[in-house]
């Protein structure tokens, strides 16, 4: 149980963030609206729903990933998960053909892709973890280079697919912040709901896993199985966010570390919701400020990349100096 | 002759070398001893112009180390620091050859070649000359670094804890070599040492430092004294004569 002072502080943080979330959402829906309300509400509503799902997926997957890695600098995106998802998408296009693929049921396609990501990320990261777990720097570097490899392979295959219209293909086939794929909202919502239920039931287990392999085993948690299962959950969440808005490298790093910074506890029952709220506020609020106030329509992902990179260097260098 | 005059070096609020003045004679082996944090390496670094002093002057063979052009000084003075961690992949011969750089600026002559071969032979590395440093043991690597400094062929040679990572056999070999270089080649060797008995055995002059200051300097017979050593190292140390030598026991 948390002492009273800390509990108060947590409650204040959650309340403040909830208010900010509501403000951001209302602003997103209403600011600068012109024309028919029913169109605006459904159009913006879909986009808002996508952003919230993305915020949730990234925040939760990052915190869980950092828990099982026992390292607060790595994130699934830094380790190349979303680049792997894009690569799998590309390989599918390559194998089946763009024409036949767009005729396929998008739900089915998403499930296939998410399933493949689960499979490959499990194989790949089990292998990496076996070799590199001893050195966190090696782990990060290997992950980052895998990310570079996946991106290079994707762009290589995309160029083979359509050498002359490579950029157009890229825009049409793959989601990005400028081209949110709202057709997947339904399935994404369902998947996220299922994952949430599972995570809620596992919350105490995550707290134990965060103590490290030895302690967790001593407390009777099957460490290996939990890690593999959590990796699968993370893969699903990454599949959701990447399918909706494409890869976002540093967002998870920012929100997770912000949550650790302001919270007086590392219990997952608190960290996960707070990180999610921070993510929603940043994503939706940031979008509102950039889009409506500065008219910088799609610069948000670029700014996240910039700030995230700075934070990463800071964290890494500070960690090394210690 | 190395003349150090009122040298002070501070890092923030801590004084590492505190107004040190000392004259080291030309020729012979001078050892600098003292506990960790005494300022030995810092002093050596300032003599070797790696660090600039806050105040005071240092001359080596009459040349002011801060004012003499670095490449001129490199022909008179060679310095080897401890902790020689290399990221580059070089052969023993490559490394030793760089000792000739101050003289030939990269255009190696037959004369340079001779110096390189001599230095390699002197440290018993002839069989390893074409091996890469990362394939050698710690002791062999250390000898290669010493060979480079010898190959630089300077009147003055400063070595900062050259016996680190060496087993007794190789440590003794290095110290014999230092002694030979002083006797036969008439060089001035200054060595920072941790091992008092090595200093006692191989030095002509011993300088003892503590807390950034020079506590005592003189011949081994003068310095290897129980009271003095016990005070410097804050540990009870006895001195026993063995043959012609004095051996410290702690």
């Amino acid at each position, binding site marked *: 149980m948390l002492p009273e002072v800390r509990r108060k502080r947590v409650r204040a943080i959650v309340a403040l963030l909830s208010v900010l979330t509501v403000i951001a959402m209302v602003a997103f829906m209403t600011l600068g609206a012109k024309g028919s309300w029913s169109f605006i509400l459904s159009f913006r509503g879909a986009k808002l729903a996508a952003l919230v799902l993305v915020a949730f997926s990234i925040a939760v997957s990052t915190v869980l990933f950092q828990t099982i890695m026992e390292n607060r600098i790595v994130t699934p995106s830094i380790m190349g998960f979303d680049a792997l998802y894009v690569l799998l998408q590309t390989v599918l296009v390559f194998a089946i053909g763009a024409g036949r693929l767009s005729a396929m049921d998008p739900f089915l396609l998403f499930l296939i892709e998410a399933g493949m990501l689960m499979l490959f990320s499990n194989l790949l990261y089990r292998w990496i973890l076996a*070799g*590199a777990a001893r*050195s966190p*720097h*090696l782990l*990060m*570097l290997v992950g*980052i*280079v895998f990310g*570079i*490899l996946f*991106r*290079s392979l994707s*762009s*290589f295959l995309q*160029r*083979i697919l359509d*050498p002359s219209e490579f*950029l157009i293909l890229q825009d049409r086939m793959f989601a990005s912040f400028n081209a949110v794929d709202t057709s997947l909202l339904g399935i994404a919502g369902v998947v996220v709901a299922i994952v949430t239920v599972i995570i809620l039931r596992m919350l105490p287990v995550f707290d134990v896993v965060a103590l490290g392999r030895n302690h967790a085993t001593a407390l009777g948690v099957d460490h290996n199985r939990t890690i593999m299962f959590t990796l699968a959950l993370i893969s699903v969440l990454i599949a959701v966010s990447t399918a909706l808005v494409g890869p976002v490298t540093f967002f998870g790093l920012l929100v997770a570390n912000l949550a650790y910074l302001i919270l007086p506890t590392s219990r997952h029952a608190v960290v996960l919701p707070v990180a999610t709220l921070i993510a929603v506020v940043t994503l939706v609020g940031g979008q509102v400020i950039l889009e409506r106030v500065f008219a*910088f329509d*799609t*610069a948000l992902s*670029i*700014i996240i*990349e*910039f700030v995230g*990179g*700075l934070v*990463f*260097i800071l964290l*890494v*260098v500070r960690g*090394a*100096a210690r | 002759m190395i003349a150090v005059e009122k040298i002070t070096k501070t890092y923030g609020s801590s004084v590492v070398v505190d107004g040190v003045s000392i004259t080291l004679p030309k020729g012979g082996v001078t050892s600098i001893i003292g506990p960790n944090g005494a300022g030995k390496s810092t002093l050596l670094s300032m003599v*070797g*112009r*790696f660090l600039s002093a806050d105040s005071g002057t240092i001359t080596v063979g009459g040349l002011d180390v801060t004012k003499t*052009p*670095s*490449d*001129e000084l*490199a*022909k008179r003075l*060679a*310095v*080897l*620091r401890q902790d020689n*961690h*290399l*990221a*580059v992949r*070089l*052969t023993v*011969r*490559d490394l030793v050859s*760089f000792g000739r*750089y*101050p003289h030939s600026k*990269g255009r190696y002559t037959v004369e340079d070649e001779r110096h390189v071969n001599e230095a390699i032979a002197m440290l018993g590395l002839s069989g390893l000359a*074409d091996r890469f440093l990362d394939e050698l043991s710690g002791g062999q690597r250390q000898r290669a670094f010493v060979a480079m400094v010898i190959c630089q062929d300077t009147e003055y040679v400063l070595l900062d804890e050259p016996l680190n990572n060496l087993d007794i056999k190789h440590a003794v070999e290095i110290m014999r070599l230092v002694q030979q270089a002083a006797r036969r080649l008439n060089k001035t060797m200054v060595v920072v040492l941790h091992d008092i008995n090595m200093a006692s055995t191989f030095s002509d002059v011993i300088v003892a430092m503590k807390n950034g200051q020079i506590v005592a300097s003189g011949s081994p017979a003068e310095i290897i004294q129980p009271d003095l050593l016990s005070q410097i190292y804050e540990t009870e140390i006895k001195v026993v004569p063995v043959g012609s030598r004095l051996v410290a026991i702690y």
Partner: protein
Amino acid sequence: MKSTLPALLLAGFILLVLAVASLFVGVSDVSLSSLMSGDAKSLQVLLVSRAPRTAALILAGSSMAIAGMIMQMLARNRFVEPSTIGTVESASLGILAITVLAPGAPVIAKMITASVFAMAGTAIFLRILKFVPLRSVLLVPLVGIMLSGIIGAITTFFAYRLDLLQSLGAWMTGDFSVVLKGRYELLWIAGALGIAAYIAADRFTVAGLGQHFTTNLGLNYRRVMLLGLTIVSLVTASVVVTVGSVPFLGLIIPNVVAMMVGDNMRRSLPWVAILGAGFVLVCDIFGRLIIRPYEMPIGAVMGVIGAFFFLYLLLRRTSRAA
């Protein structure tokens, strides 16, 4: 060490064969017989396109490999090269700046601006390295990759705002199909700098041994660093301005050469130059053949090969340490 001269001559001969092959591979047919029969069009293609392209490949390949080697000496780290520490990104930022501020500027002005930016970016990297303990070998490339991400984000932001994303893509992905007579000559500067690097080879090797070694041998460490920085920046800028970035080349070649003949640059630099040129020729010829009649830009090919090689370097290291 046995003399490597015979092997070097053999490598040079293979390079010559590749260069000749490069003259005859491409969309329009140029063959010995068509040239002998006095076909004007063939001769035209050879002189205006193929020969300049081949020259550009050799110049860019050798000079970028040399730049990578110098960079590894300056950073005293095996895992860096201009495209992984921000030099290339800074150069593109420079080209972007001059394209916007002085659109009509001659290409040499572009190159000089790009090199000033490249130098600043690389200097920032070296500055950050002062805070990184020398022995945390893996931290250096990590910081470098993140720094390039940050500079890349700044560049992307402005390119996006100014509607120059497509040009940015061209600078970031090396492509030799744009090389024509009259449009690649800047690369001769890069070639000349490669020769300058050979003249100063000993200085760079000494700098690779560290500041104290350099000072002990009577060299001015700062001046050597500045010389190296200048060469790396000018080479990178000229290559990025004319054909775009050739990623990872400066990582792959110096590492392979170090395994073969070590790091004494007096001996290894000719190897680096020849292997760099040869490797780029092979990759470019491959790019011309794989999706005929289209071309795969060399940047895309190198991205894949380079990332694989980087992983190999990293994981080989662990298996040896284990």
